[in-house]
């Protein structure tokens, strides 16, 4: 969906109604500029940059000024301040100047989200946002995600059914790379096939 793998069939459209644009053949970075951002299941960050530098870089990429080599960074105050406020909105205000690799794992997961937000996405793809985060910390993480602007469509991949049913408005269950069923949480929880694949095991145990 983000353009790293070529689809076997079908197309990817971004937008609503007649505005929907076919982005199936676009390069990953072009898709980001169209408003499709993603996070990674395994932290894919800039270890030696600070969170501030990383997010400022994402802001500058969005504004298409990352190719400018003849003006220095302090000329772009607005980008720096935007990066700062994105990090602050994710409870990272105190660590913006630390090295990214020195941060706690949960904080690094938040930097993942901050980087994606800096691209001002219309659709945000979260690939197991809480992967590897202890249960109690993941609650905080999902609080933050739930607070994100409501005009943002979030598509998240998650195995924790509790989380899925708490946050999702539409659910798409996939098995072996194919769509098993699609619907609202109520429909999904009533669906026999889903029970069998996901919920069934737990109920049987």
């Amino acid at each position, binding site marked *: 969906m983000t353009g790293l793998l070529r689809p076997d069939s079908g197309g990817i459209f971004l937008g609503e109604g007649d505005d929907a644009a076919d982005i199936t053949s676009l390069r990953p*970075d072009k898709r980001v500029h169209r408003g499709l951002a993603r996070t990674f299941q395994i932290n894919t960050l*800039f270890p030696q940059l600070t969170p501030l530098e990383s997010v*400022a870089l994402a802001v500058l990429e969005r504004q298409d000024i990352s190719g400018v*080599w003849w003006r220095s*960074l302090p000329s772009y105050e607005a980008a720096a301040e935007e990066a700062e406020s994105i990090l602050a909105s994710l409870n990272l205000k105190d660590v*913006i100047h630390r090295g990214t690799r020195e941060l706690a794992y949960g904080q690094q997961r938040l930097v993942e989200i901050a980087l*994606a937000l800096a691209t001002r996405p219309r659709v945000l793809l979260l690939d197991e946002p809480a992967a590897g985060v202890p249960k109690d910390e993941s609650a905080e993480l999902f609080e933050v995600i739930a607070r994100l602007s409501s005009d943002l469509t979030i598509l998240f991949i998650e195995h924790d059914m509790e989380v899925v049913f708490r946050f999702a408005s539409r659910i798409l269950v996939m098995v072996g790379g194919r769509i098993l069923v699609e619907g609202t949480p109520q429909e999904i929880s009533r669906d026999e096939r889903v029970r069998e694949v996901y919920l069934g095991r737990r109920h049987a145990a």
Partner: protein
Amino acid sequence: MESAKDYFRREVRWRPLEIAFWLAALLPFVAAPSYLSLASQVAITALFALSLDLLVGYAGLVSLGHAAFFGVGAYSAGLIAKHYWTEPISALFISAMVSGMLGYALSHIIVRFRHLALIMLTLGFGLLVHEAANSASALTGGADGLQGFRVPGVLGFKFDMFGRTAYAYSLLVLFVCFLICRRIIHSPFGLALRGMRENATRMPAIGAPSQAHLRKAYTLSAIMAGIAGALLTHTTSTVSLETLSFGRSADVLVILILGGAGRLYGGILGAIIYMVARDQFSGVNPQYWYFWIGLLLVAVVMFLPNGILGGLAKFSRRTSSTSASARS
């Protein structure tokens, strides 16, 4: 907590040590006038290392064929002086453009590869250019090099036998190129290059045109390397095939690693140490001086993985933090 804009402002500010360093670069004029020609060799090598630092230290690309750009710059300047005119500043610009165009052309292939393939590819291109110059002897003089021209002076100053003008010229060009490099690394593009170095996978996911970034870095680096080559031609009034050799590509990488890649001053410091060591050791024993360079390289890589400058920075951080904790 320091605000974001204050942080970026502080990053670009000149440090006292930097100013002291550039003032010290003037010392050879008064303190060691007999070493002025060595000093201009150092300045030229430093500029070459600085150009490689953009790639190795900032963009995270490795190159084993960087002499191709140095040599193309050197030959361009030589050919201009021999067949057209001997005014060096305009020749410097043209040579920079020629090697920049070569860099831009090659960058389209090079940025598609990483790791071992990238090393082999740059090595291969380096050998190709070297052999092309070797066989085109009608143009380049082949193995004898390009001779029979003399650049009399620059901006009205004659090149003197002590190398006073040559060093002033080399140092000035080095300083101007350094200012440009410093601006580059503190620009949005410089930040993007560090992003490429830190995580090339993530860059497209934040909307970065990775290959365009790398092409630009490669071209800028080739331009700077070409300027260094042209400087050598102007200050020595000869071009040898050695300017394109694999040895020169390897040496400049060693110089950069010794000094510390990704720190702007690393290549300059490396060039000073390397060139002075070569001058001293080859005086003691002309055949085996590489032994000492080898020993130095092994020691630095084992004990100072970030180069001599990286080691010094760590040491100064440690002493300043212990003195800070002693105060509190």
